[in-house]
């Protein structure tokens, strides 16, 4: 609290805005932390690899083939990452539409996470584009490929980023201490939330719909005409599991930012979320079973891919679902976090099964990501965490809003 008041006080003291910004960009906190020591070399290596990728083409860095044109950067960075960013639309739905105000304390951090995730995964998408200078074509309107699912997804990414920025913008206004801007931006929140949820519904499912035309290329245990529905439903518990996971880390790492009231409320929040996870996972599991039975895939189960399917369904959907149910009833926070981690792994496995592992599973030469693709992926992830940390340390994200902003 005192922290925020300081900033406002400084601003009100007539400190010019540029001085304020320079001050804000000064690093804070210890530099020689294990996280910094691991992430900095990887980020630097990532930059080198990105330069090589643009100078010599995608083939110099990735293991992509003519049969498997989308690899880790799409399958993990974009498809999986966006599923994890789904927490933002679920939480804003709960807080602003259902008016479940006891989740209000995690809205900002979730929206910030979602926003950064989209910025960076859309960024990762640019790395994967062979001709990125033409990326404006579907935006400026000289060639709209309106029959393309990817067109829809691209537009939704763009619009949803704007919606999320609007949802988050009151925090920026509070940071620079601009009352009027805060008032205007806050009044746009509900509209942005409604728009954002609509967009999320469509592009979370749209990411699945991208693969509808690859009918013969995806293993039949993972291909179904219901991929869009499955992707949408799973994005609910994927996003919430990420909220639980990330929130639990933030409780420790940013404990100086979190008021004791919100700190105490956190267990209540994750208990509530675990219930929603459990229910949405039950729906998902049920849909998967329906799809499996209707697809008549019994014969495929006794094959390596079939066992892998069983591991995913039993170990990474059914098990965490039961854990969520059990831990919700027994109020066990540790089990909730464990279930969230298993769910996160399960979502990674599921998305990669559709996009990479099960994609051209029958091809003679399989695609494996190169170490360089993995390094770039990690670099993108680490840069995102750096920026997240930078914002959380400065803006009223986890900490309370300044007193002047409380009334509305």
């Amino acid at each position, binding site marked *: 609290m005192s922290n925020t008041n300081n900033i406002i006080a400084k601003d009100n003291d007539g400190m010019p805005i540029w001085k304020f910004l320079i001050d804000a960009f000064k690093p804070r906190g210890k530099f020689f932390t294990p996280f910094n020591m691991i992430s900095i070399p990887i980020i630097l290596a990532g930059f080198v690899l990105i330069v090589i990728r643009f100078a010599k083409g995608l083939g110099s860095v990735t293991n992509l083939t003519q049969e498997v044109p989308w690899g880790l950067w799409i399958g993990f960075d974009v498809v999986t990452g966006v599923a994890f960013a789904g927490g933002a639309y679920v939480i804003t739905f709960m807080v602003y539409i259902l*008016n479940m105000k006891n989740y209000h304390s995690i809205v900002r951090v979730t929206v910030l996470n979602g926003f950064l995730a989209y910025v960076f995964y859309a960024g990762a998408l640019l790395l994967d*584009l062979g001709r990125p200078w033409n990326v404006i074509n579907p935006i400026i309107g000289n060639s709209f490929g309106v029959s*393309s699912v990817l067109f829809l997804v691209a537009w939704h990414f763009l619009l949803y980023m704007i919606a999320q920025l609007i949802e988050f913008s009151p925090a920026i206004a509070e940071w620079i201490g601009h009352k009027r801007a805060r008032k205007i931006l806050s009044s746009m929140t509900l509209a942005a939330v409604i728009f954002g949820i609509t967009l999320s519904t469509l592009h979370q499912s749209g990411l699945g719909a991208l693969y509808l035309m690859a009918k013969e290329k995806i293993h039949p245990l993972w291909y179904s005409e219901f991929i869009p529905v499955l992707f949408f439903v799973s994005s609910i518990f994927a996003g919430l599991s990420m909220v639980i996971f990330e929130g639990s880390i933030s409780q420790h790492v940013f404990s100086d930012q979190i008021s004791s009231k919100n700190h105490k409320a956190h267990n209540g929040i994750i208990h509530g979320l675990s219930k929603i996870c459990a229910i949405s996972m039950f729906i998902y599991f049920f849909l998967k079973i329906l799809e499996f039975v209707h697809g008549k895939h019994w014969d495929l189960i006794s094959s390596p891919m079939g066992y892998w399917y069983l591991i995913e369904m039993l170990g990474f959907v059914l098990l965490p679902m039961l854990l969520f149910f059990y831990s919700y009833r027994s109020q066990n926070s540790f089990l909730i976090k464990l279930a969230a981690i298993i769910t996160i792994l399960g979502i990674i496995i599921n998305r990669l099964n559709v996009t990479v592992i099960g994609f051209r599973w029958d091809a003679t030469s399989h695609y494996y990501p190169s170490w360089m693709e993995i390094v770039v992926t990690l670099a993108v992830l680490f840069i995102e965490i750096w920026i997240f940390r930078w914002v959380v340390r400065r803006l009223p994200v986890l900490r309370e809003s300044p007193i002047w902003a409380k009334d509305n």
Partner: protein
Amino acid sequence: MRINRRSFLGVLGLTGISLATGKKLSANPVKESETEFYGILYDSTRCGGCQTCEYSCASENALPEPDGNDYPEVGIIRKTNETKRTVINVYNTSKGEVYVKSQCMHCNQPACASACLTQAMHKTESGPVIWRKDKCMGCRYCMVSCPFDVPKFEYHSSNPKIEKCTMCFDRIQEGQLPACVENCPEEAITFGKRRDLIAEARKRIYDDPDRYYNEIYGEHEAGGTGFLYLSPVPFEELGFNTTLQDASYPELTKGFLYSVPSVFVLWPALLLGIYKSTKNNHNYVEENE
């Protein structure tokens, strides 16, 4: 959070925009046109595997000349790639060795073109499916979507192109035949209106039923293709994918795309309704604060 005039107008405006966008999105897959597409009929019973088509294709499209040591051989499956838009393979079949040419199929309703978000992949009015480099952003979704794995990407270029057969679209526009058709010494490749080619293929099967397997590959596959094949043996023996669906591939995403406008109309209204009805729920929390 109250709903005031400003936010109400905001929602109203956004809903309006959504409706407008939604409408555009529903104008969907390539129409099954009544205009007659050009096509090519390839008769594998006539093909001798001389690779003239490969050579003429390379020189026509400024691609590297095929390596002399790279010729069709039983047991080896050659594939088109970023330097070869067409290749000939040979298969040992129940009727001896049979040669097969492969290249883009020029589908009537191409998956690649409906997948392309910039319309770089484009089904021309006359039938050939072409790639336009000034539109393409290199996302490779066409490659993901194509059931025949035709588009190839230059992975080792900083200014990569998508390579695929264009049915020599430029030559057709000038009234010339595609290079492979013009240069084929065995007249195994015939160019013409797709409908005429199907009639011609039927006639060949009818005239000499012992010579041909009674099916034209491409007549129905993937919604019908511009490239049509005649073969002496069932097409599985020649490495063709005979499990492809007869409906066109863009059909697969049609349901999803059609649902977009309705979601855009229904969701905001529904969400606003829920918001209104739960608006007073937060009283109990404020007591805590």
